[in-house]
């Protein structure tokens, strides 16, 4: 049986390397054009080529998102789009993720080998729609986040193509691709990469006579998705790929979340006993929003929504990224990410796991002793017998 794929996002090359180091089997990323998430750094064709080369070292795959809902102007230069698709195939990209049916047809007319995956932007929630899209010679469908676990099971039983499901990350309150709040409220096109997330704003709610319902503010804001307890079932159902959302997310977030799902998936395949709470506890260290199981149980209750402004917490646990380790001198070179003091204990997050650490002494580039790291991205050093690697991260234990 083919092992399930753990699919992670990457907003730039650095995050791609982190995602692979922490156990992703495949990465999805956006190109400069044709991709949602206009604010993510996004990859030039040279970057994509490099990404494919890096992925090869991990025996991993690269998928490129071409998931805008295109207007005519986006496809005015049809030859440019065709050339881009051919270039993606030529540089070893495994597949493209597309939501626009016209773009699917055009892409299919110029490449054979490149897989076409139907984006969640097309909001597919049933097996009949998937059967119809088989006519378009697509390899995989990313199911809508509105599917329950039961839906996924039923669809997987009869689907003629591979299925990919979201397992973690931000959730649109609306059906993907069916919301243009941002267009109307900010003139930024939600379906072409400019979503202003108006659903996360707070509103006064009035009744039909325009009387204020309550002094409590209203928001559409959804809790983020977290499905650690459902992975075993998804594997059993024959889902092909488990997708983590977040091309805009930080390297720390990616490292934390990917490492936990990696560990869990491996434990399931190795029939190890699973303590779900350990995974959840670890993932909470990287979450800035409360999480829930989304639509997995079928019904959306108050527990799947956010109601107040204080629910979103800026994370400051991640304090430094390891840049280098001098094996001879046993000196670790780090780069500051959030203020920290050496008087409190640390935890090291590495692709092989986590462990506690104490830093007794730390110094900067001028060899001055530093107790409180308060300068953004300051390069600092400390001594350690543990052999650090490039992608290790430090967080302060509160």
């Amino acid at each position: 049986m083919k092992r399930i794929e753990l699919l992670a996002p990457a907003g730039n090359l650095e995050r791609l390397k982190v995602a692979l180091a922490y156990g992703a089997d495949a990465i999805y990323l956006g190109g400069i054009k044709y991709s949602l998430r206009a604010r993510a750094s996004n990859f030039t064709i040279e970057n994509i080529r490099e990404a494919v080369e890096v992925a090869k070292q991990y025996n991993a795959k690269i998928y490129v998102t071409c998931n805008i809902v295109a207007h005519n102007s986006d496809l005015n230069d049809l030859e440019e789009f065709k050339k881009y698709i051919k270039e993606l195939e030529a540089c070893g990209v495994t597949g493209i993720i597309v939501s626009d049916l016209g773009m699917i047809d055009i892409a299919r007319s110029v490449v054979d080998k490149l897989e076409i995956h139907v984006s969640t932007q097309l909001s597919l929630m049933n097996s009949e729609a998937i059967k119809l899209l088989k006519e378009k010679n697509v390899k995989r469908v990313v199911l809508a986040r509105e599917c329950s676990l039961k839906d996924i099971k039923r669809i997987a039983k009869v689907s003629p193509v591979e299925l990919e499901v979201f397992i973690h990350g931000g959730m649109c309150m609306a059906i993907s691709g069916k919301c243009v709040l941002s267009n109307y409220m900010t003139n930024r096109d939600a379906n072409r990469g400019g979503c202003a997330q108006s659903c996360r704003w707070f509103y006064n709610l009035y009744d039909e006579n325009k009387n204020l319902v309550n002094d409590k503010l209203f928001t559409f804001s959804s809790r983020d998705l977290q499905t650690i307890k459902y992975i075993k079932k998804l594997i059993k159902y024959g889902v092909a790929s488990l997708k983590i959302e977040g091309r805009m997310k930080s390297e720390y977030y990616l490292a934390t979340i990917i490492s936990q799902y990696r560990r869990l998936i491996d434990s399931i395949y190795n029939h190890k006993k699973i303590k779900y709470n350990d995974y959840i506890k670890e993932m909470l260290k990287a979450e800035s929003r409360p999480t829930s199981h989304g639509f997995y149980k079928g019904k959306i209750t108050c527990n799947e929504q956010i109601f107040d402004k204080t629910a979103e917490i800026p994370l400051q646990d991640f304090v430094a990224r390891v840049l280098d380790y001098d094996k001879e001198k046993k000196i670790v070179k780090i780069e500051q990410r959030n203020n920290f003091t050496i008087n409190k204990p640390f935890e090291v997050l590495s692709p092989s796991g986590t462990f506690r650490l104490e830093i007794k002494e730390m110094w900067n580039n001028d060899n001055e002793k530093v107790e409180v790291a308060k300068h953004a991205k300051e390069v600092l050093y400390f001594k350690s017998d543990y052999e650090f690697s490039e992608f290790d991260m430090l967080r302060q234990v509160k």
Partner: protein
Amino acid sequence: MEIVLNTNELGYLPFLDTNVNSFIIGLKHFCINQRYALNIREIMLASDLIQKKQKKIYLSLNIFAGEKDIYRLKRKMKKIKELPVNGFIISDLGILNIFKENNLTHKVILDCQTYVTNKYSAKSLINLGIDKVYLSKEIILNDIKEITSFNKNKIALFAQGYYPISYSKRPILTNYYKKFNIKRKKELHYLKEENREQYYLINEMKNNLVVYNHREYSLFSCLKDIIDIGINYIEINALFLKENEIKEYLSFYKEGVNYILENKLDEYAKLNEMFKEKYIFETPFLYNQSFLLKEDK
């Protein structure tokens, strides 16, 4: 020009003797953005009355269907197939596939909530078996022109009424009321962001939450362009409006279309001025494309 009235909660009866050409009526349990829908027996009756008046009836099954909806629809297909209607309005490709597998010969129209924004996408849908495709309201007039010319006689437009700007399957209003332990009295609500003037309509029915733009949309002022482009199907939606308002709209549109077709452009211009004086509406993206980020301005 086929002027189609989406009857919504007002129903079709008050408009049987108006100059409307066709009616859109929702099928109970299978439509959204409809505040009132009919069951199969009622559809039969409506169909009879409507067709006696030489008008068409389109049945709306425009839900975004989950696996359960598909199962329920399959069970009803035999009856649906036999309904004496002129066509179906759908949003979900799964429903199209069921129609195809059941060799349905009716006209199938793709609803405007599917956001079709380019000529290739429209063509692709037509190739899959759609007879007419509504275009997104978020594209510019030039795009409508180009898409229509690329897909002749296959394009429909939403012309008048309140229209959704977001669909959700989350009962967010219900949850808000539960969370703050407030007794809910009304179905329809308004939202207003603190720093903005606009009141956006929001409506939740059976786990489907729809947000509407704060103003009505209207293509009346560019009716001539639309006819010149080759559009031959436009929808007026009765949602949240009163019977007399709809009757007025129908008169304006019918008269406007006639003036244009008879090349009485001065008369149409006068009518257009009257329309602008009488109603407040907006077509935010018809002449101004939205941008992606601030730097794209």
